[in-house]
């Protein structure tokens, strides 16, 4: 099993001091051109996050899954997303336009009280025969959203 562990990401969770109905972590511009993988989110986990049977007691907060394109099967540039679209292009966006992934972490965040919370993301791919996990968890920005 291939795995990648992100460095801890500090979430300033001022909202968590107030009551909230729901909390999401949103990942923007997630690259899905590579191998399939599961990204599991852990909050304030001491040491390395567990990679199997994640539990709330071990800080597990939720996951997202990338069902990856698996590589580029066309000619050079086939899987490159153009930086700008033709203004008269009314068709759908490029198939591999980076994705937005949303993870509901309400239950775990409600159980925490600190103003700053450490987020660790563990990406795993069951790569016995399939492609190796490269450039997994590539995204441009992250947001913590809470809803009243």
């Amino acid at each position, binding site marked *: *099993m*291939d*795995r990648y562990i992100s460095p801890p990401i500090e979430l300033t969770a001022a909202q968590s001091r107030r009551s909230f109905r729901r909390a999401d972590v949103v990942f923007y511009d*997630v690259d*899905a051109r*590579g*191998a*399939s993988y*599961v990204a599991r989110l852990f909050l304030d986990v001491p040491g390395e996050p567990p*990679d*199997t049977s994640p539990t709330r007691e071990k800080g597990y907060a939720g*996951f*997202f*899954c*990338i*069902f*990856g*394109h*698996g*590589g*580029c*099967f*066309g000619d050079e540039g*086939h899987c490159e997303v153009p930086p700008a679209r033709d203004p008269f292009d009314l068709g*759908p966006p490029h*198939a*591999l336009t980076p*994705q*937005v*992934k*949303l993870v*509901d972490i309400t239950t775990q965040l409600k159980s925490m009280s600190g103003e700053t919370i450490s987020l660790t993301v563990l990406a*795993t*791919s*069951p*790569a*016995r*025969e*399939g*492609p*190796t996990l*490269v450039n997994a968890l590539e995204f441009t920005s992250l947001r913590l959203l809470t809803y009243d």
Partner: protein
Amino acid sequence: MPTGAPTAQNPAVALRYRTSVSELTGPQLAEFRAAFADMQATADDRGYQYWAGIHGLPLPAWCDKYGHGKPTFLHWHRAYLYQFELKLRASGHGHDVMLPWWDWLNDPAIPPAYAAARDPAGAPNPLYSVRINDLALEQGKRGAIPNDAGEVQLARQPDTIRQEGLPGTHLPTQADIDQVLAYSDIQSFTANLEDWHGQVHMWVGGHMSDIPFAAYDPIFWAHHAMIDRIWRIWQLRYPDAASLPATLDSEVMEPFGLTASGTLDVTILGYDYASASTSINL
């Protein structure tokens, strides 16, 4: 009995029912296998290779345009199964079959109908593995990311394989899906269900874990029937909720010729889901 919505071309007719694969009777399963075998033996654009290839390879990989990481994930796959099922029913001399669902909540293993290499009569089981066409394999070898050993293994396996339950993979539980069904807005529901759908693909492993080849594995269709069924359950639970952002109403689910809004009502598409369905001879 509910009927499909009548149109000028098609007066109301009795709906067809998709059932759990575990509820198929012996003769129903035999008929379903015969339909798969006939579709696999068809080499033109009514055949299995053509329809499995729409998902990934050979290019274009239509599912990436509409089906993954997109708000039309559920709509595109409903259109895909709908068209595939019509071709399956029309294969050979015609078969009275519907796509069954694999209930991975209550049957957390590959169903015996798909897991056995041979059918009860000793013939190769068309639901077990499928040989992938040379063009798809060639494109797969050309561009795939190699595995840890530096090899592009899946594209070198002409017959689909599974490696279910590898470390780090999980099937959802009833509690997980209950949580998904608790979202009353279509965006949250779709996003969370798509993520669990991906986990099932990875749990099955082998070609199912890889977009380019996933639909060649016959279990793909039973897995997606389960996903489509969960969406149907959600639609019944929240009858007043929009099943599609309004801006996507007229989005065409290529290459199936249906709009996203045209996929919303399964009874217009002529089917629904039942625990079991048995014709009773009178």
